[in-house]
């Protein structure tokens, strides 16, 4: 500010209606650097160019549609998980909760021979219920979300296996392909939409819609403000009247909703679900959110970041196949991305906290 002192005082109008002479002109590039998802965006662009150069097939429309589909199956969950992480918590039960949702729909409608849609609605109730219970126990016991959701994870894993065998008599849920309502449910949850000759899975559109809605909620509504505050400093938020308890429980339920969408896709993409699936996927969702710039400690991040994280995941996953490398390298790649992204986030947070 020392250099501005020598300048003659500028007339108020010259500074513009909302300008201030102490704010230097920031280029759009600098503004971009202040965003939480910038690290992930740079990573995504670099990765895209890299695979485009290595593999001819990578940039063909059909391959891109496949990559987007792979990304969307992670990205749908990453939306909820990102919001939850911004709200200061995380959920280890998401991977198996997706399967629980699918199993609920399939086993219920099969066992009671109802229309498939009855099972679908019940699955939604169960998914939201799992989220509610996670949040409620967390609030009541004040235990860390790590412990609470780890317990839920184990219990759901057991329930998935035990109930599927008990009701269906096998490790896989019975086929519901011939049941009433199956075709309409498949059209809603697992169809493809043709875009200029390229078949794009409907989950890609679900993903985009969810990201858009989540971004709007985060940045432009009261609830979004509360999510940031609950994650940034729950005590301060509570003291100024933010309903922290409701916000956190609501976030767990939002994760449940995302799990339901993905669970229904998993079910109707085929006609049965393996009861032992889903274990380990919770980490993929968390990784996507972290790569996308969400702070593990809460209070910072974006829904778009989580989406970019999921896209990086999808590109790396399919790109290695298109480049005809050994897929064994994939996990190494993922670990490296996670490490780099977390370091970038750390630097961003330090810059935000210090002058």
């Amino acid at each position: 500010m020392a250099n501005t002192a020598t300048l003659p005082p500028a007339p108020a109008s010259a500074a513009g209606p909302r300008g201030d002479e102490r704010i230097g002109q920031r280029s759009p590039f600098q503004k971009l650097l202040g965003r939480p998802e910038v690290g992930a965006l740079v990573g995504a662009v670099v990765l895209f160019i890299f695979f485009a150069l290595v593999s001819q097939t990578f940039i063909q429309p059909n391959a891109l549609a496949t990559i987007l589909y792979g990304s969307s199956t992670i990205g749908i969950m990453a939306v909820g998980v990102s919001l939850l992480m911004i709200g200061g918590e995380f959920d280890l039960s998401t991977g198996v909760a997706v399967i629980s949702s699918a199993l609920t729909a399939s086993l219920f409608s099969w066992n009671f021979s109802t229309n498939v849609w009855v099972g679908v609605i019940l699955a939604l109730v169960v998914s939201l219920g799992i989220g509610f219970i996670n949040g409620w126990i967390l609030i009541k016991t004040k235990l860390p979300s790590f412990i609470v959701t780890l317990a839920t994870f184990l219990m759901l894993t057991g329930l998935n296996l035990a109930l599927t065998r008990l009701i269906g008599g096998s490790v896989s849920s019975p086929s519901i392909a011939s049941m009433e309502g199956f075709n309409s449910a498949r059209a809603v949850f697992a169809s493809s939409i043709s875009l200029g000759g390229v078949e794009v899975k409907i989950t890609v559109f679900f993903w985009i819609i969810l990201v858009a809605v989540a971004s709007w909620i985060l940045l432009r509504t009261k609830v979004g403000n509360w999510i940031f505050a609950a994650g940034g400093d729950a005590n301060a938020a509570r003291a100024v009247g933010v309903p922290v308890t409701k916000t956190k429980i609501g976030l767990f339920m939002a994760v449940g909703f995302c799990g339901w969408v993905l669970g229904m896709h998993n079910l109707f993409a085929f006609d049965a679900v393996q009861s032992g699936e889903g274990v380990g996927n919770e980490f993929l969702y968390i990784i996507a959110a972290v790569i996308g710039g969400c702070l593990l400690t809460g209070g910072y991040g974006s829904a778009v970041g989580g989406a970019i994280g999921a896209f990086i995941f999808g590109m790396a996953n399919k790109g290695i196949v298109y480049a005809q490398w050994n897929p064994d390298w994939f996990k190494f790649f993922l670990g490296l991305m996670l490490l780099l992204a977390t370091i970038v986030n750390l630097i961003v947070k330090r810059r935000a906290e210090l002058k």
Partner: protein
Amino acid sequence: MNANQIDQQTLLQNEKDPLTHTPVHLLSLDGVGKHYGNIIALRDVTMAVDNGRVTCVLGDNGAGKSTLIKIIAGLHQHDEGVLNIMGEERKFSSPRDALDVGIATVYQDLAVVPLMPIWRNFFLGSELTSGFGPFKSLDVQKMKDITKKELADMGIDLRDVEQPIGQLSGGERQCVAIARAVYFGAKVLILDEPTAALGVKQSGVVLRYILQARDRGLGVIFITHNPHHAFPVGDRFLLLKRGKSIGYYDKKDITLDELTAQMAGGAELAELAHELEQLGGHSEALKEVKAEVAEVADTANAGGPKHA
């Protein structure tokens, strides 16, 4: 309790009970106490807050200041005595209840969420929205404008309301919190040790905002352990010690020296002198303490308030 106990009626400022039209305090405590299990954190505290007055609560660490404000701010509930708001007995079950009757608290450490922009912090919990039903969205530009204007009115010229509030200095952060409380129509403003972590100059700035809030007609409760900060701005002083009120004075009845003496506690100083004497070998320190004991005794004997 004390000969110099203030006459409550003299401090009333045009506040009338809506039903009986007799004067009432904006907020008053009568014999309020609180215990956690078998630990008595606070007992028999009586004080009042009125429009355009600053009530200072002084006390050392563990004197019960925090418990007192937590009761008024709705974080804890009192077990004994009466808490009156505009003459009506109340017991708050949450901070929201206290906020709804116009009691805003500015906490020393948890006033704001550091990573959030200033304007989001300013409106946190009371966001402005436009639109209807599920499409209600934040009125971002309006909130930014109001934040900038309100802070300018308090004399804080901010560079950019979009910057994270964690980048502001401690004093500036306190001021944002005070401005926020004033803007949201607080009638009673509780300030929890706002100057404790600040330098001399920053403390002066915060004290000026306290006076500004007072001049806007708010009743201010100023918690501090520093009589030098309390005396210039305060109208009334409640002294707490070990969870008990040891004095409640109007400004006209007490001087800064007397206040300091009461805070320092002549008895404790005498005890310290005795201990030093027994240990021996601390002649320098002993001399100093003894001089201070004499000084405290002087001010107390010179018509000042005696220990309760």
